[in-house]
């Protein structure tokens, strides 16, 4: 005899409620007809956005002298050799599926973003973060913390070795699950190009249920958050390879010849 899952008490927000809101937001976006590739900051299906988005329009600033058209630089002291291999930060090997994530960081004109800091963090293979606030009853892995960093190479390329993170539950609504993802933080040549985002894995059945991924209402833009499995990046009897290229938004100062 099978045991029925516990039914939600009345008044609890269900996945069906969230599905309806996601569909409504997408329909509103399509009806509006104005392309928007970043997520709306006011995205009701993601409940935590309710009190954390501005209600006034952003003020557009066209200032060729703005400090924001330049940005911080990073160098050898900001990273160490082991930072790009999240499987070697402890005495033993972490549990899970070993993967590499490789790609290039470009600006919108397709120029490589070279020598810039890229930081990542993620859950372990069981879907648990090494963070006190994560109360998911999945095991911690003593051999995996899940944070790494690197500087992009001259051609804008980067590469991390890690393990595939697991999906995990959260409390946006009843039975809410995040698809597996890796958090990315990137700097460009200008502060305006700053980006924090998340990379997803192809074919995850949780995509349609997740209000964070779905906060990107443009479907083509949403697909750009999903890495590609690339067999040539896999290494025989060692690791599976994914490719994810990143394009930074925002203007940058035009450097003169001498400044190159």
């Amino acid at each position, binding site marked *: 005899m099978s045991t029925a899952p516990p039914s939600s008490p009345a008044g609890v927000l269900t996945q069906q409620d969230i599905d309806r809101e996601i569909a409504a937001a997408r329909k509103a976006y399509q009806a509006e007809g104005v392309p928007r590739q970043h997520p709306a900051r006011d995205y009701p299906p993601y409940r935590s956005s309710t*009190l954390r*988005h501005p209600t006034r329009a952003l003020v557009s600033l066209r200032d060729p002298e703005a400090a924001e058209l330049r940005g911080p*630089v990073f160098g050898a002291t900001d990273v160490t050799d082991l930072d790009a291999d999240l499987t070697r930060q402890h005495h033993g090997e972490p549990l899970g599926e070993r993967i590499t994530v490789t790609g290039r960081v470009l600006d919108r004109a397709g120029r490589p973003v070279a020598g810039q800091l890229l930081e990542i963090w993620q859950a372990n293979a069981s879907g648990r973060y090494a963070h006190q606030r994560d109360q998911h009853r999945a095991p911690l892995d003593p051999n995996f913390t899940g944070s790494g960093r690197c500087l992009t190479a001259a051609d804008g390329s980067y590469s991390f070795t890690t393990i595939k993170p697991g999906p995990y539950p959260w409390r946006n609504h009843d039975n809410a699950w995040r698809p597996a993802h890796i*958090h990315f933080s990137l700097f460009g040549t200008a*502060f305006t190009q700053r980006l924090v985002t998340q990379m997803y894995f192809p074919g995850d059945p949780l995509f349609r249920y997740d209000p964070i991924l779905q906060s990107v209402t443009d479907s083509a833009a949403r697909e750009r958050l999903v890495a590609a499995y690339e067999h040539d990046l896999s290494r025989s009897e060692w690791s599976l390879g994914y490719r994810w290229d990143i394009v930074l938004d925002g203007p940058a100062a035009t450097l003169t010849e001498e400044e190159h």
Partner: protein
Amino acid sequence: MAQQLPTPEHPLTPAQTIGPFFGYALPHPAGGDIAPVGHPDAVTVHGTVLDGAGQPVPDAVVETWQAAPDGSLDGAPGSLPRNGVDGGPRPRNGVDFTGFGRACTDAAGHWSVRTLPPPADRPYLAVCVFARGLTHHLFTRAYLTDPGPGDLLLDDLDAARRDTLIARRQPDGTHRFDIRLQGEKETVFLDFPEQ
């Protein structure tokens, strides 16, 4: 002219929220120590990040970028230094002014950086805010001195809105800059279109 921008060949990667679990990856104990050690001109800029109900936001990241006192925007490496022993954080070198700071809010929503005053022609810290619940970061500016008329950004704002961008000098000499994500005194947030 602005209407005729070509469709960029490379479509951008959308932002996603920083989420609640960045705490073992992004914070750096020296992230806010922008001023060289013992520098006599060092100033402290700090404040609280507040949500639309006036509640502190304990899971935000506030990053600052600014010109050096001599006007340079070249920056310098070493804002988030690491040690080569176990990859953990190490103090800044104490000498270089990198122009960049990263401060994470505490349980009371408070953040602070210790820096050098920006120059008179760019008398502000550029500020970028990330938080759980914020799907896409927000830019604003903390002016440490009121530049008066002639500032491209401030000139276009009414007095109350303009006020949200001016840090308040405190009796203890620090500069207070609260960031209100939403509500009556909502901070002015910025967008930087292609020039």
